């Protein structure tokens, strides 16, 4: 059984896992970081999105062994140690960008990647970016509003 080592939310982690362990299972079952969700398990819904080496990716479609030596960021890594929410988390709360909340970790990790490369996305750019994230509650309107709100907050305008 190979030993997998990666940094997750800034902390070094390591575990002996079978070769067929998915990254999302490493995160949830071995590290007990259950904020990353498994929705469809077929790489369509985006509930499992995390950042691998700074880019958003679906952790249900990545093997843990492929992430050896990588830097992984999950939803648990966004808020400040004192509990202060990340501006995107605060914006989803403020704009009511969620109802059941199951898709929200993936929505936030996905759109964080968007805002890191495109700090002021337009409405169509946000909707296009969200192709890989499915929400069955909100109808997306408030998710788009939340991302716009966070963009304003993060760019200081």
């Amino acid at each position, binding site marked *: 059984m190979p030993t997998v080592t990666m940094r997750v939310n800034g902390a070094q982690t390591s575990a002996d896992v079978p*070769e067929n362990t998915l990254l999302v299972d490493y995160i949830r079952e071995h590290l007990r970081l259950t904020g990353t969700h498994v929705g469809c*398990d077929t*790489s369509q819904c985006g509930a499992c999105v995390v950042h691998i080496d700074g880019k*958003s*990716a*679906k952790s249900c*479609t990545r093997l843990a*062994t*492929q992430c050896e030596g990588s830097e992984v960021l999950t939803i648990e890594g966004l808020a400040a140690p004192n509990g202060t929410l990340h501006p995107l988390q605060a914006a989803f709360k403020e704009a009511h960008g969620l109802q059941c909340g199951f898709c929200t970790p993936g929505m936030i990790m996905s759109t964080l990647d968007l805002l890191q490369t495109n700090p002021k996305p337009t409405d169509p750019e946000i909707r296009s970016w969200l192709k*890989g994230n499915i929400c069955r509650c909100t109808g997306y309107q408030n998710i788009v509003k939340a991302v716009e709100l966070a963009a304003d907050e993060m760019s200081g305008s």
Partner: protein
Amino acid sequence: MYEFQYAKPSTVADASTTLSADEANQPLAGGQTLIPTIKQRLNAPGTLVDLSGIGELTGITREGSTIVIGAMTTHATVAANATVRDAIPALAKLAGGIGDPQVRNIGTIGGSLANNDPAADYPSAALALNATIKTSTREIPADDYFQGFFTTALEPGELIVSVAFPIPEQAAYGRFEQRASRYPMVGVFVAKTASGIRAAVTGAGQDGVFRCAELETALTSDFSAKAAEAVKVPADDLMSDLHASADYRAALIPIMASRAIAGTA
């Protein structure tokens, strides 16, 4: 998932050796198709040979009148690359429309071409632009490379190293997206190349990507959106499935070609 072994070689030679050792061993590029098929137990690799540790497989360079893209280069990298956007903007556009942002961050051009999904985007660009597939053992012209439904000219153990795209005078890509899967129901890549007008269609053919003679004839006379739209494509060898009939796909081909040339696709 069935159990499998995992190897991460650092050279093409080592990867080929491991792949050739047992026909159950399989290369792993981005895995955006392969991992889901393994999860569904449709695929049971002996050893998965992860190609991500082989540095020479990544990168984009311009070599004279050709753009060379390493096999492990991601769709997102191709879409954002200034060299590609400048020389073959239609190729950058194609890469930027594959799947969704997370798939584009991980999925690779080599993986797409090796898999040759009949609805993948990249095969249409490789065929229309008359690309050369450079492998661990030889160079394969696109006309010889694509050999049908999920079938290519690659031999067991042979790896794609890079893809060389001759820079066309003009090129355009239009796709009609299946809204749930994000795969093109019909994708048409048209190009004015040094070897003439070429038009390749993905998503529609029973045997995968194909060159559309009717479009090529019409566009050779008049490379315009209007000329493309007037083309009649026979439905004989096209796919019918739950998403669309062969006749519907046949009707979409000239429309997607027309929208591509008009820049409205």
